[in-house]
């Protein structure tokens, strides 16, 4: 029985190795931070619309689940996910709304007219205050918000076809039914 104490270092090593396995697993970005806003009501916003007279307001979007995508014309990773957003907008009737984060309206407009506009509506957040309220620390970031206005999911960085198929679309479907 007393011999068991010699197994203690091995046990401690296994615990440590467990932490490493979790922290260094593939497809895990160590710079991705846990969000403080999950399962909390989305911060309210009422932004001037880009190229449209009507504003983009949270209260007007409530009632059905929707997706908010923070983007900017100066944002390189946004270009990576842009074709995917275009495809989703065409195929899936995704309720996708854009927020132009710290971007000049003229630049956002040029981006969307050059590469296509996947958004139902775009709001202008030129000083980044709405982004700050959401806890955005880098674009692109994508939020899934349910019909009562609660943030259910956050994606940091460009969306991939895999995360859209396995996480975003199933979640939207589930939210739409409940």
């Amino acid at each position, binding site marked *: 029985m007393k011999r068991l104490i010699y197994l203690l270092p091995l046990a401690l090593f296994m615990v440590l190795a467990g932490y490493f396995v979790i922290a260094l697993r593939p497809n895990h970005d160590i710079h991705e931070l*846990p969000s*403080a*806003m999950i399962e909390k009501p989305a*911060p309210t916003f009422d932004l001037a619309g880009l190229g449209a007279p009507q504003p983009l307001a949270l209260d007007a979007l409530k009632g059905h689940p929707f997706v908010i995508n923070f983007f900017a014309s100066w944002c390189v990773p946004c270009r990576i996910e842009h074709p995917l957003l275009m495809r989703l907008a065409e195929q899936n009737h995704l309720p996708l709304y854009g927020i132009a984060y*710290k971007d000049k309206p003229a630049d956002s407009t040029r981006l969307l007219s050059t590469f296509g506009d996947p958004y139902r509506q775009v709001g202008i957040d030129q000083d*980044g*205050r709405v982004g*700050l309220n959401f806890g955005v*620390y*880098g674009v692109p970031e994508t939020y899934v918000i349910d019909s009562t206005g609660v943030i259910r999911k956050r994606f940091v960085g460009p969306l991939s076809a895999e995360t859209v198929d396995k996480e975003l679309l199933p979640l939207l479907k589930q939210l739409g039914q409940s």
Partner: protein
Amino acid sequence: MRNLFLSLFLLTAFAAHAVEPSERLSNPVLEARARTISSQLRCLVCQNESIDESGADLAHDIRLFVRERLTAGDTNAQAIQAVVNRYGQFVLLKPPVEPATYVLWYGPPALLVAGLAGTLVWLRHRRPSPTQTMPLSAEEISRLNGLMHGTDA
């Protein structure tokens, strides 16, 4: 000459702060509080710098946000909590002491104490107890006496 180097060195030391003149509040008390808060908040873009030191755009935005909150009458704790509500506890450069961070705060001292205790126990077990020392036999005593007095030479 040495004084010149010293003053140059001190000048560069102060240049590390990234607070822009346009951000400063006219009220020096509020500004000082804002600086104190800024030095405790992590810039999320360059994760090892405080927002007081960082030139990142996001750091600039959070500095302005903190100053707005202070101007609106927030206490230091309220202003910090407002940033934590948005960005999570990771923004705090010094994590609070709470159940989730007990391992972080008390782990290293606990390991040190455990190591010292283990070493003490080990040392104590190694020391032979006096009762286990066997007395010399009669034969050994006579041989020792012979050696000591040189009679067998």
